[in-house]
């Protein structure tokens, strides 16, 4: 596969929900292999932007390219390359952690899904609760399960929406380690977080949003 120069290329994108513009006339780029810190108050459009990059949603206007692929028109090719960890965890509440991950593993066509799943659960410290339904999980455990899913998919662009939110200090340290590990593999990480100093340590560039527009951080 030919290497692409830009991990992200947003060309005048806007996104509307109902009567409200969540993103307005946004343009920016991110080079492949580099990581981006996404900051802004709640409601500034961070989650919307991450969902657009993940192809869960598409711009109302403008063009978004991820890894050189058009987010809407080339979504089938793009989806394996992008991973999103967000507020909505994508899990089935009534299935166990192991069952949720095994489902993803089988859809990805992984060989020996059982051992892959066990390995990831162990790594994220969830092995003891592997067979409990997700409904019984705490917020921090759900986040770790979502990370496990992301690692399984091994995307080229990893989107993390407030990943430190529900974690204790040990968990935060582990998360930082994981982010650096992903970056070591050449993955571009887009990190949306309120913890600005922490985020700046982990990323090379910053995009600050206010009212859905790019503004200079104050």
């Amino acid at each position, binding site marked *: 596969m030919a290497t692409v120069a830009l991990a992200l290329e947003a060309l005048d994108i*806007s996104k*509307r*929900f*109902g*009567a409200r*513009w969540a993103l*307005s*006339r946004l343009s920016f780029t991110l080079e492949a292999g580099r990581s981006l810190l996404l900051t802004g108050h709640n409601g500034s459009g961070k989650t919307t932007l991450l969902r657009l990059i993940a192809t869960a949603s598409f711009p*109302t*206007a403008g063009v978004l390219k991820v890894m050189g692929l058009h987010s809407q028109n080339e979504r089938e090719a793009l989806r394996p390359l992008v991973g999103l960890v967000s507020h909505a965890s994508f899990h089935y509440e009534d299935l166990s952690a192991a069952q949720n991950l095994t489902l993803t593993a089988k859809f990805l066509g992984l060989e020996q899904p059982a051992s892959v799943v066990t390995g990831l659960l162990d790594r994220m410290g969830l092995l003891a609760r592997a067979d409990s339904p997700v409904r019984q999980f705490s917020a921090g455990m759900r986040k770790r399960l979502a990370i496990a899913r992301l690692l399984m998919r091994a995307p080229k662009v990893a989107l993390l929406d407030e990943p430190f939110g529900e974690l204790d200090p040990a968990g935060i340290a582990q998360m930082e380690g994981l982010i650096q590990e992903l970056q070591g593999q050449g993955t571009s990480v887009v990190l949306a977080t309120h913890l600005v100093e922490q985020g700046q340590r982990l990323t090379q560039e910053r995009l600050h949003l206010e*009212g*859905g*527009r790019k*503004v200079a951080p104050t």
Partner: protein
Amino acid sequence: MTPILPLVVLALVVAAMLGHVAVPAVRPWAWKAVGALGAVMLVSLWYFGLYWAPPEQFMSDVGRILYVHVPHVWMALLAFTLNVGCAVAYLMKKSWVTDALAESAAEVGVYFGAVGVMMGSIWARPTWGVWWDWDPRLISTTVMLLAYVGYLALRSFTEDPERRATWSAAAAILSYVSLPIVWFSVRWWNSLHQVQSNPSTVDKPMVAVLRWGAVTMLCFLFVFIVKRYEIARSRQTAAMELPPLEAPRAEVA
């Protein structure tokens, strides 16, 4: 009046409709002309339908309501067909014009359909002694009407414009596809139970008046859809503008 005359007027109305679609210059006055024509035809329909046409053999004067009842149902079907055409077109290529037209066609169709079914019920009571019957046309039209009321409810409950357009297009297609199936299944059920089908009017004067009624209603269908479409488009444009390139300067407290 002969059965040919309404067809001549029909050709005029269709020409006006095509002109409205194809030639933007005629749009401001095409609907007014057709509307005026429709009003004139309606007044003359009262004359033709209530006095000029002879009483029907079996149904006597009650049968006269058919001259408005049948055209109303035809117009409803025409409107729903337009709606589903727009639905398919929208799913193939998104366009607000198509969505606005679909919305107008559905609303106008529900109006004509509801009035048509009520008129049919009024006709049925003295004729068959019942308000309702297992006639394939009646059942099909009512099912379509219910389905499209659901369509309008779905549209009004969905706030996001893109979702509203996509979901209602899907609902329209699923509803319309049921029309032939309902038709055949009811007709079949009736044939197995030897239910009498409705007598049809074949006398020349009656055919002429029926056609006259149909063209009259077509005029109104056209005018209603055009006006409703304009309302839909103006509602859309208000919400569709892209935000300005630069953020507006916020007032400093």
